[in-house]
């Protein structure tokens, strides 16, 4: 009995020993010989690395409202070497259900809204280990793909932009194409907005699922800075509505309304009659994909008289009350100019000439200063020089030097013809005149904000162009325009308002003038000027004199004053009389 037992035990012992030898042999092979090599091979077979993009910064309005933000979308990619037939747990049947590649392709086609045959082709292309099935899908779609549990199909996060306010300030924000930012702040501040990508390394099992306990390394991505604009999105919308209404009313080619803070040079609104929705740039006419205030230069017209008057006051060749006999037509150096409507000779003050915007009177005043000085003043107020507000591209202005002027330009440049400028040039010029003669460069970027909240404000250098007294007198001249001159519709109850109308002839493609650019630019409140609003309509239909922009100005300016809690002062107008003598109501 004992013998049999012990014999059996010996056999068992032998088997156990044999297995032990086998196991330890294998253990020795794996652990003892080329340990590192084996481990490395195993790990590298499982390692997967995914790039983690740095989150692109937001674009915020002046109040911190998000105007453009990054959302996480996904590229759905396949590794055809791993893709194949597989089984899933079918909850309804309680069984393992086999799924073929064809079925996977069909299911994916439905989820991704792509062609099934095309997808099947990509899934079974053995030449590659990376095939993009669909680009930039939402997290919801990605989840549906994930739920299929198909092996070898991954989602790679890709940054995507959304613009919650749509076409509000769309042309300022710009947009991002498939290869990167294309226009506006997106392109201009790309360096600040874009972050540094990081990397995520982890191990995946044979089923393509991450192994929870294994290696996991992450090189963190660095997020981009936020860009806070000076734009007030609510005011921007209001201005867009107002200018769209005007442009629509006059069936004009385009319209623009720009609002700026006089003290800081901050542009609060830069509204175009039509604006691109950055999410769908292709659906808007090319003209409206970039800010018109920046891209369109035109002859400024009567608005340019402000430079002539400010210059004349600064040079001391006239005063607001100095009298002139103003004719309908005026000839100088063999060139005759005339006013918009015929009238008798009037005995007027300089203030009256400005208020009624008479070309003849303006030239009589401007001619007291030599051409070079006049040119220098135009240059100092920004004309003939590009204007950069931080939007990447510069606003253009063409002003030839006096030696290149033709016979008429010595006169026409005094009343805003014969040279061009953008809306921003007009706004900048009015800004320096109304801001005590100090130029504060216009800008649209308020600050760059780090991901940790540190702010880097954008600084600008101010520069004195006119004396304070010139500025004060100019404001009174501008008040005359609204009180009794060409812009009476601009008045706002309770506030002192000043401005300047402008109806410039617009040059056509083939030389001559074939349309008009109408503008009203004004400032308020005159007791302590804070805002400048400029409304422009280009090529309105109808004939000269049909167009009135002062009401749109008044609407936008009163909204601005109310939004920024500027109280009405109710103080008396300080405008000078327009005509010499008691009588002031001469016909136009």
């Amino acid at each position, binding site marked *: 009995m004992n013998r049999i037992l012990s014999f059996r035990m010996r056999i068992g012992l032998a088997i156990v020993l044999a297995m*032990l030898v086998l196991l330890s042999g294998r253990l020795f092979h794996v652990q003892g010989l080329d340990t590192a090599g084996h481990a490395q091979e195993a790990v590298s077979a499982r390692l997967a690395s995914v790039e983690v993009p740095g989150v692109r910064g937001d674009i915020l309005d002046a*109040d911190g409202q998000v105007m453009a933000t990054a959302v996480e979308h996904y590229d759905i990619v396949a590794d055809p070497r791993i893709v194949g037939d597989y089984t899933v747990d079918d909850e309804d049947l309680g069984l393992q259900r086999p799924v073929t590649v064809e079925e996977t392709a069909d299911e994916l086609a439905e989820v991704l809204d792509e062609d099934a045959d095309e997808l099947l082709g990509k899934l079974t292309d053995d030449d590659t280990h990376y095939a993009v099935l669909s680009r930039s899908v939402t997290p*919801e779609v990605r989840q549906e793909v994930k739920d299929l549990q198909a092996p070898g199909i991954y989602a790679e996060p890709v940054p995507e932009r959304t613009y*919650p306010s749509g076409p509000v300030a769309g042309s300022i924000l710009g947009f991002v194409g498939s290869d990167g930012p294309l226009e506006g702040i997106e392109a201009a501040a790309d360096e600040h907005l874009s972050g540094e990508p990081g990397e995520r390394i982890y191990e995946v099992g044979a089923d393509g699922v991450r192994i929870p306990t294994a290696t996991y390394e992450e090189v963190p991505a660095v997020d981009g800075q936020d860009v806070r604009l000076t734009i007030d999105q609510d005011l921007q919308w209001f201005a867009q*509505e107002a200018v769209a209404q005007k442009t629509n009313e006059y069936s004009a080619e385009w319209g623009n309304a720009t609002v700026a803070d006089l003290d800081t040079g901050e542009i609060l609104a830069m509204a175009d009659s039509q604006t691109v*929705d950055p999410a769908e740039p292709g659906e808007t006419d090319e003209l409206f994909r970039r800010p018109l205030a920046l891209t369109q230069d035109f002859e400024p017209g009567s608005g340019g008289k402000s430079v002539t008057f400010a210059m004349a006051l600064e040079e001391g060749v006239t005063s607001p009350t100095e009298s002139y006999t103003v004719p309908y037509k005026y000839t100088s150096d063999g060139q005759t100019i005339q006013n918009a409507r015929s009238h008798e000779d009037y005995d007027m003050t300089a203030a009256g000439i400005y208020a009624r915007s008479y070309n003849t009177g303006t030239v009589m005043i401007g001619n007291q200063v030599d051409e070079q000085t006049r040119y220098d003043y135009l240059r100092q107020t920004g004309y003939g020089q590009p204007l950069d507000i931080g939007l990447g591209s510069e606003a253009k202005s063409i002003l030839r030097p006096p030696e290149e002027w033709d016979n008429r330009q010595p006169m026409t440049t005094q009343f805003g013809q014969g040279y061009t400028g953008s809306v921003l040039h007009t706004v900048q010029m009015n800004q320096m005149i109304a801001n005590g003669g100090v130029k504060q460069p216009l800008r649209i970027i308020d600050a760059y904000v780090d991901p940790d909240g540190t702010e880097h404000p954008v600084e600008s250098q101010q520069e004195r162009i006119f004396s304070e007294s010139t500025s004060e007198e100019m404001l009174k001249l501008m008040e005359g325009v609204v009180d009794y001159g060409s812009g009476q519709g601009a008045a706002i109850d309770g506030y002192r308002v000043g401005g300047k109308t402008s109806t410039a002839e617009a040059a056509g493609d083939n030389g001559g003038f074939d349309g008009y650019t109408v503008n009203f630019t004004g400032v308020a409140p005159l007791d302590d000027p804070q805002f400048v609003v400029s409304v422009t309509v280009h090529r309105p239909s109808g004939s000269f004199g049909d167009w009135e922009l002062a009401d749109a100005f008044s609407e936008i300016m*009163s909204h601005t004053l109310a939004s920024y809690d500027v109280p009405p002062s109710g103080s008396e107008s300080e405008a000078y009389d327009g005509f010499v003598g008691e009588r002031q109501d001469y016909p136009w």
Partner: protein
Amino acid sequence: MSVLSVAEMRPGRAPEPESFAAPSLTAVPTVRRRRRGLMAGVIALLLLALGAVLIVNIHVANSQYQVVQMNNTHESLVHENASLTQQVQVLQSPQSLSSSAVTLGMVMPASAGTFELDTAAVLSGAEAASSEERPTNFVSAPSTAGADATAPVDVAERAEGAPGGLLGAGALHTLITGDAGQNSSDENQSGEADRTDPTRGGGTIDAPSLD
């Protein structure tokens, strides 16, 4: 662990040849019995250890998968949150606010009357808002909120199941009523507080006091 236990078993079997040499001795069976008990104990200990290792292992693996699952839940909640934030941003856009206001029957404001407190002079007369004055809608709605946005969520519905306190319904309450915003004073943190304040008479500006 298993290598050790096998080694331990060897000395247990080593005495076996002795039993062939002296079968007549009587002391052996007692020794064997004692050794059998020892062996059983060792095996039991071994099984216990194995079982313990197995349980710990299963538990660790389970927790790891739980962590992965919770990470996934976290991720999907983050996405939902992002999607809802996007919805809020779209609803905060000026043109959406404008169209909501029109839906509620609101019209463009007319000018408010103002007077100088020191001199009691009227600076500007008040005007009644006209029911005809609706905001224009030249600026189209944002196209971002397209078909791929998450379906709107009724936040109040979720409040029922949420825990109380700072992280639960309280936080949800803050979400629903929104933050103070730039026009609210510090003591009236939410819009609801404004409405219930009797001195305000339903508006946001203090009503005149009668005493």
